[in-house]
């Protein structure tokens, strides 16, 4: 291959991808280039066709979707005309690919060593011993603790982050000239996301591999990519170098994306502090029974929440942050008595609800609500929007039918869903569903709302809208809110106070500005460091 320095390793010309009998093409007239060793980001929201474009390069389009136009040149040769057998030398040594779902990206029934060796055995004439050495070397490179044991282990024995690293290692073993990474870290929490991406960039630089990063997270683009292209509904909107495209985006859509990045709001007045706290948690402990070992014995119970104290004042937005496994979700559920807790007190307006009887628990439930993370799973598919939002009113005998109807209509307008009362959940988008969930939570005007990762499953632009909606509703209704999230950027925009949790204990808490600007605890610093904040970067460039 005559690869002069500046000749593009990959150039896509007028690419067109369509559903077999769909009307609107998924990708229309897309052209871009990737220089050797360059790091190009492909940015777009879900449905923008970025994944389809990436998969078309390796002809891995799912059944029913075909490439109907354009050329894909790799080192100057057209790939789209090659049949499957001719694609074999390209797949692997030519172009490598890393996928999004760590849990199913490795074959559960084969040992790690076997799966990694498969590529090498296929494309090189190396002996078994050499292959083994190469694999061990690569595993050490991606910082896997005990490579020897890892080779004989099965995928299910590793966490999401570890599996993503193993997949990265097995792809980079073949030293591809181009690596396509399709949202490699979306499913991971901030810490492991940072580690995996740093490794990917390092490996690519060592090997001179060009990287095509497909993502919807502008933060990552700011930190890692040199150039970026923006896609909307299958069409190229804009291309440009990274700092420039973030600072002064030329196209309207790009600006919309950049505006959606969470920004710090000015802190609210300090009025809330001296009032009597709405919710007080004292010495709360929650533990799960250990796994069963043998006939009757069990492993010792695992302590998830370890003697924790917490105050939430009325109208205050308290953010609860921490990595996965820090126990933040369990705490939220324990406070609402959805999860059992072993000891301690939960005082709501001074009354302990942890050991309350049914009637007291019912009163407590009337006054507080929970918003879930997954919009698909939190709404009953068999009920229309109106019924979903109206259901909580069953427990308000004071309202007659007409008042109930008015209240539901009001709440739907507030969340911007007027006129959608008759729709069913599967007819709505992710964002709209989350608005229905919020409407359901607020229709009874609760005093205390726990929001468990309400926006992390949404696209950036929609995330911004829902966050702003949540803030305005809190300001309007004055409910206290416990906002649980691992996304520090969103917390930065919305929170009054921030509480950082690690393995069941609070390691740091304080107002948003104090915690974010002068983090005391090492874990908080690591979390902040791991959160890409492009604006700060762009500020440095400007």
């Amino acid at each position, binding site marked *: 291959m005559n690869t002069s320095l500046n000749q593009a390793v990959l150039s896509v010309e007028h690419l067109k991808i369509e559903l077999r009998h769909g009307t609107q093409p998924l990708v229309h007239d897309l052209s871009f280039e990737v220089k050797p060793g360059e790091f190009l980001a492909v940015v777009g929201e879900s449905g923008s066709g970025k994944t389809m474009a990436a998969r078309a390069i390796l002809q891995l389009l799912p059944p029913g979707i075909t490439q109907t136009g354009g050329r894909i040149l790799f080192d100057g040769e057209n790939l789209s005309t090659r049949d499957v057998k001719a694609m074999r030398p390209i797949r692997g040594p030519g172009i490598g690919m890393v996928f999004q779902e760590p849990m199913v990206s490795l*074959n559960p029934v084969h040992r790690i060593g076997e799966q990694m060796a*498969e590529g090498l055995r296929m494309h090189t004439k190396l002996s078994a011993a050499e292959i083994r050495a190469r694999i061990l070397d690569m595993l050490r490179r991606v910082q896997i603790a005990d490579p020897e044991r890892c080779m004989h282990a099965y995928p299910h024995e590793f966490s999401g982050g570890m599996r993503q690293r193993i997949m990265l290692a097995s792809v980079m073993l073949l030293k591809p000239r181009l690596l396509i990474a399709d949202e490699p870290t979306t499913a991971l929490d901030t810490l492991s996301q940072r580690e995996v991406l740093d490794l990917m960039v390092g490996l690519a630089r060592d090997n001179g591999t060009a990287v095509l990063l497909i993502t919807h997270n502008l933060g990552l683009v700011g930190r890692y990519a040199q150039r970026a292209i923006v896609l909307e509904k299958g069409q190229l909107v804009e291309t440009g170098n990274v700092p420039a495209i973030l600072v002064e985006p030329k196209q309207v859509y790009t600006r919309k994306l950049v505006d959606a990045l969470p920004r710090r709001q000015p802190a609210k007045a300090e009025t809330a502090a001296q009032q009597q706290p709405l919710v007080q948690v004292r010495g709360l402990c929650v533990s799960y029974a250990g796994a069963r070992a043998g006939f009757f014995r069990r492993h010792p119970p695992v302590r998830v929440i370890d003697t924790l104290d917490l105050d939430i004042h009325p109208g205050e937005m308290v953010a609860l942050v921490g990595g996965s496994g820090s126990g933040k979700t369990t705490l939220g559920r324990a406070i609402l008595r959805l999860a059992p807790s072993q000891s301690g007190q939960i005082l709501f307006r001074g009354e302990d609800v942890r050991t309350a009887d049914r009637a007291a628990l019912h009163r407590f439930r009337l006054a507080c609500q929970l918003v879930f993370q997954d919009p698909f799973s939190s709404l009953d598919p068999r009920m229309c929007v109106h019924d979903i939002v109206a259901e909580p009113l069953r427990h308000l005998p004071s309202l007659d039918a007409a008042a109930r109807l008015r209240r539901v209509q009001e709440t739907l307008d507030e969340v911007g869903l007027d006129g959608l009362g008759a729709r069913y959940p599967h007819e709505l988008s992710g964002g709209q569903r989350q608005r229905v969930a919020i409407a359901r939570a607020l229709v009874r005007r609760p005093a205390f709302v726990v929001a468990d990762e309400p926006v992390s499953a949404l696209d950036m632009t929609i995330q911004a809208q829902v966050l702003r909606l949540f803030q305005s509703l809190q300001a309007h209704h004055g409910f206290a809110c416990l906002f649980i999230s691992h996304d520090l950027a969103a917390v930065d925009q919305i929170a009054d106070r921030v509480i950082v949790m690690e393995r069941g204990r609070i390691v740091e808490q304080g107002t948003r500005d104090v915690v974010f600007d002068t983090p005391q605890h090492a874990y908080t610093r690591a979390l902040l460091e791991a959160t890409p904040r492009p604006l700060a970067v762009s500020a440095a460039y400007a």
Partner: protein
Amino acid sequence: MPLYLLRRIAMTIPTLLLVSIAVFTLMRLIPGDPVLLMLGEGADPAQLELMRHQMGLDQPLVTQYFVWLRHALAGDLGVSTTNGLAVLPLIWERFHVSAAIVLTAVALASLIAVPAGLIAAWRKDRPTDLAIIGAATLMLSVPSFWLGLLLLMFFGQFLGWLPVVGYVPMSENFSQGVLYVILPIVTLVLVETGVLTRMSRASTIEILRLEYVAHARAKGVPESQVLRRHVLPNAFNPTLTMIGLILGHLLSGIAVLETVFTLPGLGRLMIDSIFARDYPVLQGCLLFTACIYVVINLIVDMCYPLFDPRVSVQ
């Protein structure tokens, strides 16, 4: 491993006891008196009483049950009231007949169905898939005993190649024995292939959706190897459970097929003992089939981890 084995067996004992008690009482509830059946309506009451005493049927129900249980635990399932043969050897011999046919048929059906399902799923919604699914649905819809009758009429009566009736055990005379067993096996294979093909196709489609298949392809692994090394082992597990279920069900006697082909199988034995109110034989049959059910489920659970390391034996 043995601990898990013990626990699994311990869990089945209550079910077995429950089944034996249920059968014991239901048999006595059903009208019809074995002694009357044996001696015929001509026998006068005195003779009936004599025979009932000899068979211990005049004792209260509970004592009869415990007497039976004590003997059963010692491995003696009593003696048949109709032909005086010991029950366990009789069941064991009849079980050979059923098992030979069922095991061969299910094995053949799996050999055909699993690959067929794989190809159908791989070529989803293309002509080959429609053909395979069409054939499977057809096989599934034909009642097994009717199919048996048709085959019997065609090959037995019309062509005369295969014997229409009767049975020679293969142990006795292999060349004759095979002739009697061909048609039942063919019938069973056709029916079960339909069931298993649909099952294996459904589970393969599930697997093809997962990303490690795309990952393997992205590594340049040829399609045939992707199917063989990555898709088949994962698709085989749910099908294995289905095979276990089918085996458990069929081994308890394919009564209807045995009636069509006049095979002295376990199913036929159970029906005759129901009609003759032959309590010891029926009791023995039911306990035996319940045990088969348990053993098959155990074996399926045991070889589960062989195919899927995620399932650790806890």
